[in-house]
């Protein structure tokens, strides 16, 4: 396993030194040489640890900076998304408002025609009071605005339901 490790060379040196320790007797020269090698390897290892730690910390810092940039970009994207949704909502409301106005106007014109062609002659023939016909027209006129609001609300509700359904399907 040590052979496949990133520190296999250093592990090999350590094993060699351990093996040396198992010897029953050593000459002074052998001891000196082994100690010298051990020191050299130790020194090299310390140098490596120093440089790798330094580089690793620095690159961690780079990673942190990149994360901060990403978070900022993400926040900006979220803000833009919110604004975009608000604009889409406003556009949808305006579009629906226009459509609701058209529908209500169509209904009012229809009611006016119905009242002029069918209801007015019946009223004129049966009730001897001009205020009844006028009152009827006044009621229709008063109902225009609430009628438009109700239609608008209903259509907006339907449009939002449709948007939600589409969003769920996309997920």
């Amino acid at each position, binding site marked *: 396993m040590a052979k*496949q*490790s*990133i*520190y296999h060379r250093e592990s090999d040196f350590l094993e060699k030194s351990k093996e040396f320790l198992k010897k029953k007797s050593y000459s002074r020269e052998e001891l000196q040489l082994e100690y010298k090698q051990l020191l050299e390897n130790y020194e090299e290892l310390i*140098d*490596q640890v120093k*440089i*790798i730690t*330094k*580089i*690793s910390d*620095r*690159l961690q*810092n*780079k*990673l942190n900076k990149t994360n901060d940039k990403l978070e900022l970009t993400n926040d900006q994207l979220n803000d833009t998304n919110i604004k975009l949704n608000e604009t889409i909502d406003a556009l949808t409301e305006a579009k629906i408002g226009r459509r609701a106005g058209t529908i209500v106007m169509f209904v009012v014109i229809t009611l006016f025609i119905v009242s002029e062609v069918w209801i007015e002659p019946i009223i004129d023939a049966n009730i001897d009071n001009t205020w009844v016909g006028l009152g009827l027209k006044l009621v229709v006129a008063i109902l225009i605005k609430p009628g438009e609001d109700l239609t608008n609300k209903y259509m907006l509700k339907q449009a939002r339901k449709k948007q939600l359904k589409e969003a769920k399907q996309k997920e």
Partner: protein
Amino acid sequence: MDNLFIEGTKQTPEVKFEANTGILEIKGRSIPENTFEFFNPVLLWLEEYSKAPVEKTIVKVNLEYFNTSSSKYILEIFKRVKTVFTDGHNVLVEWYYEEDDEEMMETGEDYEDVSGLPFELISVEED
């Protein structure tokens, strides 16, 4: 001897070592799952190359990011290249970094200090 080419991925750098021109190029991002598996062939190739290098060896390093274990292997690469240098051949390490990437520039300076190889730190414009 054969050239060494390893295609780059999202996690591993592209390696293009040409024995006949002496241009050894490594670029991209180095965060392999198994660094030993990735870098061992590179080190073995360098060991072979150092036995019969061309007159001038240029090591081009253009890394965007690398993890801790890769930093150890990069050090090992420089050690192998150092043997070519100490044998009396010309060696130059071209260390590329993006112009606002202070960290990568300083990392190049650290490798220059520790490896004892001639370095040229080259700033490049961001993509």
